């Protein structure tokens, strides 16, 4: 009788652990692929592109973010290689002049204002400091969106408020609420 109670309790415990660690992440995130199989690696290796060739700062210092179709079409008005990904991109987006709806891994909540210009130009921060190896990836990762909050799973990987605060503290920089929450 005593063992039977332990077994029932452990069965519940193990079921919850399995569901919480293995099942919950599958259930909470909705996955969707990026519109184009874009390879940062090919652009960096073969075309010799640097990050700010496409992710540029405007003349007024603001960050342009993901380049628009015009920028891509500057090189890919016609196919430059033989990959299926490039052909699909040209057929589906360049030719019909349709902007790809990229899912942004690092998109922050609406109440956060993050200035790339301050961190890159003044703080001399490398892109990899926040975006890890995304700039050398051969394929875009599958975008995972939280079903409840609607935010990307990636913002929990080094892009939380505590990560910002930790970095500022390590660098001995001042920070206050209104720096980001304006």
């Amino acid at each position, binding site marked *: 009788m005593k063992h039977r109670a332990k077994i*029932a*309790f452990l069965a519940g415990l193990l*079921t919850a652990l399995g569901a919480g660690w293995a099942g919950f992440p599958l259930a909470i995130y909705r996955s969707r692929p990026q519109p184009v199989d874009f390879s940062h690696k090919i652009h960096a290796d073969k075309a010799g592109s640097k990050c700010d060739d496409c992710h540029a700062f405007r003349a007024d210092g603001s960050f342009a973010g993901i380049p628009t179709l015009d920028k891509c079409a500057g090189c890919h008005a016609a196919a430059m290689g033989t990959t299926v990904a490039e052909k699909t991109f040209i057929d589906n987006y360049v030719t019909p002049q349709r902007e790809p709806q990229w899912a942004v891994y690092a998109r922050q909540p609406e109440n956060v204002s993050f200035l790339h210009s301050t961190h890159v130009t003044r703080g001399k921060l490398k892109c990899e400091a926040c975006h890890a190896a995304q700039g050398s990836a051969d394929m875009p990762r599958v975008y995972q969106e939280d079903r*409840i909050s609607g935010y990307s799973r990636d913002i929990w990987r080094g892009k939380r408020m505590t990560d910002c605060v930790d970095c500022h503290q390590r660098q001995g920089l001042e920070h206050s609420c209104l720096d980001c929450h304006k």
Partner: protein
Amino acid sequence: MKSTRRDLFLFAGGSAAGALLTPAPWRLITDTALWSENWPGVPAPPRGEIRTRFTNCSLCRAGCGVRARCVGDQPVQLTGVASHPLSRGVLCPFGLTAHHLPYHPARLKQGPHERALAAVSAAIGSGDRVAVLDLQPGRTASWTYRRAMAALKNGVYLTNGPSVAYDLHQAKTVLSFGVPVLDGWGTPGNVIAARENFRLIQAEPVESRTATLADVWLPVQPGDEDATALAMAGELGADGSALVLDHRGPAAAMALNQRLGALGRTVVARPEAPVPVEWRSAAPATALAQVEDRSIRVLLIDESAVDGYVPWYQIERKLVLDNPVVVTFTASHGGYARHAQYALPTAVYPEISEDIPTAIDSVAATFRLSTALIAPPAGIVNPAEWIATLAGLAEGDTIRERADGIHDSGRGAIYTPADGKTVAVKDLTAEAFWKSLGEAGCWIDEPRHARAPETTTAVSEPHAHDSDVDLPLVAWLAGPSSPPLLSPLMTKLYQESNLRLAPNRVALHPSDARAARLADGVHAFFQTRLGRCGVDVTIDPGLPAGVVQLGTAPGILDVYRPGIRAKVVPA
């Protein structure tokens, strides 16, 4: 083996314990909190191109230059413009969060347009006196009111704005009687720039933020200002390098400023940008106090731009007793809408498109536009257009007409924030000048056009009164006054934390609170011989005993005047 209810409970207990060891419950709590940020009704800017636009803040007449970071057409961040010649990159906390105001839950969005128009038209038709009360004179809208009142039989244009301007850069000593010089008075960036050149003596009973930053704090009791001023006059010198500011208004310090040689030097008549010649036949500005009591049948109040609050008792005694018609143009329910028969909704900054009058700390006339960053909702009234239509004035772009008038004068220069350049007006075509104004340009006149103000004397009322014997406290405004609508972020930072006295609060010394049997945070009544209003109580040991410090809610201002005696009683 048959499962029992006990097994089921043990399984559930194990599941609950196991769940706590997984990320699931903690993640659900976090996600739910994040989800609540995006509830329906919470404005979320649409995805779009991030770009910079410029405007000028119209929350007060400081009119600071604003750089707006926009996603698509939606402003998401407001900051100052570092190269701006007046505001010098500074924005006050109200200005930093002003892009939240259009979404304020207490905002007035609907009003009885037709009924108000019918009531006003009927009253005007009977030939009775009609008046416009302009709470921020000097705007192009103000001139429309003046022209409208000139076109109407028995029309009167009333103001309550400052009649003078001050030059802090020329002052070596500033003696301030309760004016929050370093806490929202004037143009913050300009005050900060001038601060290192003058000695500030702050005379007030409460050690305010300005008092803590002043060179000298004189703890003066309310009512002792004039005696203190006389005692200090000899020490300040009469070479025009000293300047006196008084919370009771410019007239209260006029005699002393005259004696100190400040008039025409650091105290000048309020400068105003030129207007077209044909406007100069408009009705003159009349101070509300100069109008005889019980003479106004129709009163139109422009609350869309405010520069101080006129207590209702001062307005009410000017109205006829028999069925007066009061219409207020406002964005909130909190001001004169409590007393008016008709409250018509207006646009709020940054929806508003209008010019901003010269700031109180600028001795050179200025002209700048607050260009709308977002469109106002449907059903909004433009007070100037409404009153112009009422008076039958010809339709036209009055702001453009005034801009052309400034250009025709050939005076001054215009600064444009996008390129940070300043160009003399005489080097620009009228079209280029108008274009620069539309890009948040700031026209500044030559200071040589400044002139000395007319000398006036304050009408003082006795502080003591027979009925004051049971009023043990002296009332003191916490200042500066806040805009009618506050961003929710401001509410968090300044009101819930009590860093700034909330508009509907009063603060008392602990001994006064004990005597009145009041605890911290309770609801109470603030009472003077002008009336009483409901307030919340803060107990502050930093206050001197015998003083009640007041928030600046209209309800409190309606029963307040400088130096008045008061009491706070439990509700």
